[in-house]
């Protein structure tokens, strides 16, 4: 699959990349689809689609149980995916990679399995003001269960976490620090390495919500020295319904299972059940086998393109879109210095829902709404925003198509 692209994709590289994604040829209302909703979910390259087809056509079987040929093939493919993910995140061992439904389940797993037995009244959990609901609500549930308190490190008007305030929120009471690597609503990249070190200095463990980061940045969990890192396959060109929780081995080993069932046990009697070792202790029931296989291929595909080329292309798209947004006098929500390819904006006082409906009529898919970050919308005093999020397969022509509709929106609402 190796494409040997350079650090900057050439026009022919970009054509080849677009050809890898069959959905980009779809027409919406007789116009070519312009897909700018990549932060919600990314499209899938043909190689991922083929991998799922191959699995179901040639070696569909349950894993870890059968002695027959197909089961061995499926088990090998499933476990190879775990090794691929471990290598991808630079984890020490593949048993530190737990397959889950997605980032949301990973965070809930840590809250319930790590947090619930440990936290006591007046302990503190620290998050930031730009978190997705999935990195807010599981901690609120945990606070209700344990009497712990949720603290929130504030952001500035550019959408950056105010580092002095973050430090001021940390104390020996802080037991868990849960941070987005990249804000899904604003695109802000958080300086998580420094933030993790500060959390560690007060004895807190750290969880990083990497849902928006994995598609854009190379992540090295050992270099970051985070305790947990979570991401979802579908945002990184893989299938929906599967994600990853990475954890430090000593923490995962000490944690009780999150769910009980088959697959996660060594022996069961009505008197006593002995749980499996890592990682199976956390994978009750038949797992999302084809999801793991698809994720493996998606990560191979990403590797074949190279993060340098991806980052360069996406940065160019962001700069181009930001320039056009200024030219069209749009209010940009989130102007952090360190930002990924997400552009959240308002067209005058026109509600984002109305803007989204009109954009859709011209074949342009964006996300409109509060982006599962209602406290953040409250901070910026907007009910919702229009969010265009770009992937490496997007083009400047597509961004032009987006901004050509803006005067039409204003015409309707003049």
């Amino acid at each position, binding site marked *: 699959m190796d494409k040997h692209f350079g650090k900057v994709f050439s026009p022919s590289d970009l054509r080849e990349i677009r050809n890898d994604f069959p959905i980009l040829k779809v027409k919406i209302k007789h116009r070519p689809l312009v897909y700018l909703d990549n932060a919600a979910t990314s499209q899938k390259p043909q190689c991922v689609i083929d991998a799922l087809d191959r699995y179901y056509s040639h070696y569909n079987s349950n894993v870890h149980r059968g002695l027959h040929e197909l089961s061995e093939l499926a088990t090998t493919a499933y476990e190879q995916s775990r090794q691929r993910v471990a290598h991808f995140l630079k984890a020490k061992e593949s048993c530190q990679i737990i397959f889950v439904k997605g980032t949301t389940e990973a965070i809930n797993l840590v809250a319930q399995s790590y947090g619930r037995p440990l936290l006591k009244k007046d302990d503190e959990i620290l998050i930031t003001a730009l978190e997705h609901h999935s990195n807010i609500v599981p901690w609120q549930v945990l606070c209700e269960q344990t009497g712990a308190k949720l603290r929130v490190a504030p952001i500035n008007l550019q959408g950056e976490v105010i580092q002095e305030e973050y430090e001021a929120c940390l104390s020996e009471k802080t037991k868990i620090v849960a941070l987005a690597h990249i804000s899904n609503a604003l695109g802000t990249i958080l300086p998580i390495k420094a933030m993790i070190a500060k959390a560690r200095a007060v004895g807190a463990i750290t969880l990083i919500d990497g849902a928006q980061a994995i598609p854009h940045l190379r992540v090295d969990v050992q270099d970051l020295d985070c305790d947990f890192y979570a991401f979802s396959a579908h945002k990184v060109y893989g299938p929906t319904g599967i994600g990853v929780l990475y954890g430090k081995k000593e923490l995962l080993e000490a944690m009780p299972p999150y769910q009980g069932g088959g697959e996660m046990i060594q022996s069961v009697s009505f008197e006593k059940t002995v749980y499996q070792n890592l990682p199976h202790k956390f994978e009750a029931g038949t797992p999302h086998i084809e999801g793991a296989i698809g994720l493996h291929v998606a990560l191979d595909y990403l590797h074949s393109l190279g993060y340098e080329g991806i980052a360069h292309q996406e940065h160019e798209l962001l700069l181009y879109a930001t320039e056009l947004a200024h030219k069209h006098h749009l209010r940009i929500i989130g102007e952090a210095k360190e930002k990924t390819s997400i552009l959240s904006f308002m067209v005058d006082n026109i*509600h*984002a*829902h109305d803007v989204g409906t*009109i954009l859709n*009529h011209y074949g342009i898919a964006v996300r409109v709404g509060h982006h599962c970050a209602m406290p953040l919308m409250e901070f910026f005093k907007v009910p*919702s925003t229009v969010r265009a999020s770009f992937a490496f397969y997007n083009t400047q022509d597509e961004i032009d198509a987006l901004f050509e509709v803006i005067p*039409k929106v204003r015409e*309707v*609402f003049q």
Partner: protein
Amino acid sequence: MNDELAELYQELIMEHNRHPRHYGVLAPCTHQAAGFNPLCGDQIKLRLQIENDLIMALMFEGKGCAISIASASLLTEALEGKSLAEAHELFTLFHETLTGQPESSHHSARLGKLAALIGVQAFPSRVKCATLAWHTLEAALANKDTPVSTE
């Protein structure tokens, strides 16, 4: 502009969005409720003065898209002076029309100005915007204290 879009954002809708009728706080009032659309964050508060099963006065306030604000405004115009039975009947007609129920093709004459919202039929994801104020009305009449959600 595309026909479906023109049908959705027709002049009467845009005019009610720019200048919503009966906008503000009705005090005192006998019934009130808050409505919320979690999909987009739209919020409507509706207050009514009801005497002997007649809607004597009603006002709304809130934030929302053009469709939800225009729909709330049109609702207040349509229901002032109506009986509760008439209000319920109008909601049924309106809801059936927006969701494209087969029996709804004859409703438009009885809907009056509310028929301006028929264009929403072509936009299933926007039906909740148009019905938010009506669900809020139902909650206010039932005197439910908890905010009503369109989900």
